[in-house]
């Protein structure tokens, strides 16, 4: 057995690294995900808020699929081996570099030996910390994304721990000239309106179920995580039972077990499942859902495919504008 699947922290001292002083609540290495192997049962993983992930990489001059840290609710403290450009996007935390405040959504230089500490979280659930050169743990099946349940990717398939050394790639990119950005997607303040398209199995529910879904907010239950959000709210009724022949479970799909309480499937979802799926969150609103945590609330709204596409195009233009500043 080699450790290609475990990304060990035992590395040559010459490789530049970040040293984890404090890990935060659940901080994981994420690139854009392990695509192309769902037919073999391999979950995609990747960022909960893909827009903030991409923005963080753009700000420090990385390729969009570079690996970085996803930070959940409570942030880490990190020490740098060498001088690098870094940036934090997504959830807004107070950020301190050797005790001095540093900005959110902006690239700044971290000197060799300096420490970045995440302080109080102001809004949003997940921050993204990118560093020029990216985090260069060995890829597993073509990706560095951490999938916690199958213990794959990142550092040994787990969240980072104190004293981990996160190896860094060579910083060859050019940081975004302006070095800062306004947020691409406004951060939700513990409640969000999330747009869905009906299907793929809306017809397996009672005729009023889509109206019921939009009738009142759903609360995200405590046992919600990167796999999915268990939602508590208006009960959705199936008209012929809650079991289907297992099929694929796309990102953002709302699957509904017999309880009638939907589960919103997120980044670490399994590849397949056996519950009917009433509706699917549009791609442009996945980043907003990704900024919610336990006890936050969601109001669902059915939209049109045209609205879904124009929202996505607007995000893409904003991201490309930041990425273009690199040249």
């Amino acid at each position: 057995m080699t450790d290609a699947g475990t990304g060990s922290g035992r590395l040559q001292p010459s490789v530049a690294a970040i040293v984890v002083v404090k890990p935060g609540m659940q901080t994981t290495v994420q690139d854009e995900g392990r695509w192309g192997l769902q037919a073999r049962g391999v979950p995609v993983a990747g960022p909960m808020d893909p827009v903030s992930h991409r923005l963080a990489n753009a700000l420090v001059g990385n390729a969009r699929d570079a690996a970085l840290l996803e930070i959940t609710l409570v942030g880490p403290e990190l020490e740098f081996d060498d001088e690098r450009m870094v940036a934090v996007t997504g959830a807004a935390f107070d950020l301190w570099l050797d005790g001095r405040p540093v900005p959110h959504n902006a690239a700044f230089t971290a000197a060799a030996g300096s420490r970045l500490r995440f302080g109080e979280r102001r809004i949003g659930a997940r921050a993204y910390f990118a560093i020029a050169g990216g985090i260069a743990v060995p890829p597993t099946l073509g990706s560095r994304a951490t999938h916690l349940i199958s213990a794959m990717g990142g550092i040994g398939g787990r969240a980072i721990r104190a004293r981990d050394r996160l190896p860094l790639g060579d910083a060859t990119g050019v940081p975004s000239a302006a070095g800062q950005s306004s947020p691409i997607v406004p951060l939700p303040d513990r409640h969000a309106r999330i747009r869905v398209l009906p299907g793929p199995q809306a017809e397996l529910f009672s005729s009023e179920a889509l109206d019921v879904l939009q009738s009142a907010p759903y609360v995200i239950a405590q046992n919600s995580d990167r796999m999915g959000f268990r939602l508590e709210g208006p009960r959705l009724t199936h008209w012929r039972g809650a079991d289907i022949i297992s099929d694929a479970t796309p990102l953002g799909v709302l699957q509904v077990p017999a309880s009638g309480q939907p589960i919103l499937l997120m980044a670490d979802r399994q590849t397949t499942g056996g519950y009917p799926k009433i509706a699917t969150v549009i791609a442009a609103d996945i980043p907003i859902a990704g900024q919610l945590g336990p006890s936050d609330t969601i109001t669902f709204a059915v939209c049109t495919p045209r609205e879904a596409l124009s929202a996505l195009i607007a995000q893409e233009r904003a991201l490309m504008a930041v990425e273009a500043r690199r040249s």
Partner: protein
Amino acid sequence: MSTSYRIVPAGDAAVIVEFEERIDPAVNARTIACAEAIQAMNMPGVRDVVPTYRSVAIYFDPLRTDGDALLERIAHEAEHAVVPDATTSVPVRIPVCYGGELGPDLASVAVFAGMPEEEVVRVHSSATYRVFMLGFVPGFAYLGLVDERIAMPRHSTPRVRVPTGSVGIAGVQTGIYPTESPGGWQLIGRTPTRPFDPARSEPFLMKAGDSVQFYAIDRVEYDRLARAE
């Protein structure tokens, strides 16, 4: 040949082709042929193609995909994809040490079936199974169809920890746990063969559409093979 199917969107970044709603080798063969044909097209923007028992999910980037062209090609393949001749595939052969501490549910499956344990082993290991799909965890293959006589339903309360390599039955399905995980299937034995190992040059032992046979080995042989893995 025309078979009923429908194409349904799943949000704005995935579309699903559904064939007849039953667990059936012919429907599944058609499903997999359709998935392989779509995969082989290598269309720009398509990120993943996932066949299951009777449907194919196609994941794509909405900003880098010609949606109309994609739907057209999917409909074409759903209609016309050529189903390969099943008799040409060489079965994957998997050794299993049945019963004892490695197969703690063999005795209850024997009671369920009203036959001796050795007969359950003979029935389970004499069939050639089809890999209908993979899912649940990396490398987990849903195999079928299990002989009705030994098709015991899963436990009502799943085990918290099922060891890697455990071979289980759940109704007409059988399968191998590729990694230690929770699980509710009736565990009749264990294999030293790893269905999934990301460090191996071919990480996956099986893919959808393969055929699989189990053969019985004793504990000495199990231990020898387990050391060699």
